[in-house]
């Protein structure tokens, strides 16, 4: 009886097995990399806005405090987008002829808000509240990145659940004193982290309660 398999079949079998294993591995690794990549998370991409508003100019160069425009951030779940009146506080006198500010002037004249596009869009099953984070000392740039360098506003990183938990499990390295909340260039020191740990402990901010499911999902 003739041989069913030639000697080379052994080589083929090994080659096919190795190729199959590599294919599965590359799909798993590639899929993971793709799902965490900027293509999926939109990190670094500035969505279209009715007015090309620059945080680099307003917050960076003009040193306007974040709370000048986002003035409910200390009391409310929402940081609030400024009213057209807030923009016009300065732009009634500065850049009054600028074409790119036409939507602001029209909104102000007609008494309706400008409709901006969301940059950070957490899913609806996440109940995020700005006020409590600010009250406990989470500064603006801690989550929103180097906003003073953004000519157009984009996500500086992915707002994933793992990223939230990094801080909820151990907030001490991330929080700051209340008078530095809107300091755009604030950096923590070693002493600061130890001081934070003491303060958070005294205020009852403990990782045990901050990692319960219902802290964020209600």
């Amino acid at each position: 009886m003739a041989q069913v398999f030639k000697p080379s079949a052994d080589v083929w079998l090994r080659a096919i097995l190795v190729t199959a294993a590599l294919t599965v591995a590359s799909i798993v690794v590639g899929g993971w990399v793709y799902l965490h990549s900027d293509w999926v998370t939109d990190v670094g991409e500035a969505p279209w806005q009715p007015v090309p508003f620059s945080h680099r100019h307003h917050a960076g160069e003009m040193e306007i405090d974040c709370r000048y425009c986002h003035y409910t951030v200390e009391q409310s779940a929402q940081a609030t987008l400024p009213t057209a009146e807030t923009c016009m506080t300065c732009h009634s006198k500065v850049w009054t002829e600028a074409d790119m500010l036409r939507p602001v002037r029209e909104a102000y004249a007609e008494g309706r808000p400008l409709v901006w596009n969301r940059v950070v869009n957490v899913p609806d099953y996440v109940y995020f509240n700005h006020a409590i984070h600010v009250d406990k000392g989470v500064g603006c740039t801690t989550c929103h990145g180097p906003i003073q360098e953004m000519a157009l506003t984009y996500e500086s990183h992915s707002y994933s659940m793992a990223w939230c938990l990094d801080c909820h499990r151990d907030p001490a390295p991330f929080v700051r004193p209340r008078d530095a909340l809107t300091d755009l260039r604030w950096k923590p020191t070693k002493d600061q982290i130890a001081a934070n740990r003491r303060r958070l402990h005294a205020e009852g901010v403990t990782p045990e309660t901050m990692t319960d499911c219902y802290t964020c999902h209600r």
Partner: protein
Amino acid sequence: MTLRHLRRAALVPLVLLATACGPDMEEQERPRPIDPEPVLSGPTSRLPVEGTVARGEKTAWEVLRDRPEITPELLAHGRERFEIYCAPCHGIAGYGDGLIVRRGFPAPQSFHQDRLREAPAGHFLAVIANGFGAMFPYGDRVPPGDRWAVVAYIRALQLSQHAEAAALPADVREALP
């Protein structure tokens, strides 16, 4: 298979419906505060009826009527609010030389002049609430309690630029150059 089995089997699709998940939960049908509202046109978060007061809170008038006690905490709060909302135009020290003014906004009056040193607190309270000249109203950005804190801090700024050396405490006077 009995009828009871059939009844149980009929529950299976119901249970599957109850576990519905995915994009529907990511984008739920509830409106969010600053989303556009299709029926009434405008944002979903509406303005409260004029004169609305939260339960247990004082009305704006009640807060504005009585001058609060001047404490270091009030002054510190006033300084923080002043530097957020006022300093862009009025400048950190109140001379009317803020960064926005250097970029072309009409310069406001300096706080360091006799007219404003002698102006009653009510003048500043009214200007914060209603605006003045080129200045827009700040009533919605600076609530009544904060306005008192800002006025207290303006008074401190005025004093800082117009104090008699003899009126200083002895230890501070010694530190003068």
